[in-house]
């Protein structure tokens, strides 16, 4: 189970509304490479991951992604807080406002709603970890794009933190890939047994 801790992983305090950035930040809240996609991807892939170390990594990185998702929701909420109708229209968010007002909704900057089609859980440990490595790189690239769109330090600081987390997660998943490549082609008893079990059902 999960227990909520009533604090953010990294502080977010955006003092002035910035609707243009609220719109851009939706990429990491409800887009294909968003923190939401990352969290759901890892937490659902972990069930069939054959190695203790890789299971732990998926479980714990997946948990951290939920904390990042909360940071993004906070950033979008604060970027919209106090914005006027004309600012919303000027930033091209009239469509979003019509459907969600200033509610935080998991869609991408173009309004495409979040979908589980963004992720995979193949049951194949190597295929899953390779997807996770790609996901971390895509999220890192998205954070770099976001950082070029603003010079507001209130927004850049949390983005810098989140970008660095993707780099560290990528490193851990790289180690998972190495672990899997070592155990799977050789005589990994657990993996073989698991495979044998499911074939006899």
């Amino acid at each position: 189970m999960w227990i909520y801790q009533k604090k953010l992983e990294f502080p977010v305090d955006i003092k002035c509304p910035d609707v243009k950035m609220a719109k851009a930040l939706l990429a990491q809240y409800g887009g294909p490479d968003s923190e939401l996609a990352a969290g759901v991807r890892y937490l659902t892939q972990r069930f069939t991951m054959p190695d203790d170390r890789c299971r732990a990594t998926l479980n714990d990185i997946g948990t951290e992604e939920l904390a990042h998702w909360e940071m993004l929701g906070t950033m979008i909420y604060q970027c919209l807080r106090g914005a006027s109708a004309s600012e919303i229209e000027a930033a091209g968010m009239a469509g979003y406002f019509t459907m969600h007002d200033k509610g935080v909704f998991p869609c991408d900057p173009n309004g495409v709603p979040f979908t589980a089609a963004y992720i995979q859980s193949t049951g194949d440990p190597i295929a899953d970890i390779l997807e996770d490595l790609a996901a971390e790189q895509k999220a890192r690239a998205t954070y770099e794009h976001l950082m070029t769109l603003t010079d507001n330090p209130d927004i850049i600081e949390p983005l810098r933190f989140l970008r660095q987390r993707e780099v560290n997660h990528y490193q851990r998943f790289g180690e998972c890939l190495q672990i899997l490549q070592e155990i799977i082609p050789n005589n990994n008893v657990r993996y073989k047994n698991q495979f044998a079990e499911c074939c006899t059902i």
Partner: protein
Amino acid sequence: MNCSCEYSKENLLKRISEIQFVCTELNLYMDTHPDDMAAKEDFACYASELQDLIGKYEELYDPLLGFGLSVPKAGSWVRSAWPWE
């Protein structure tokens, strides 16, 4: 509130976030290196500092964990500020 005070709400929360971040990083590192003794020692040290800081914060200010994992002393779960506010 005096922000320079060591146990001001802001300073304690900042310190908790810093130490908890160290613990998060070490936790992820140990996920793929479960037998690294040096990391285990560091983790034990930072985790106990984190417990002390959280205890201090909850004694003076608000509960940080729900579902009975914090025993609310000073603050209230419902009425303390939510982190996006």
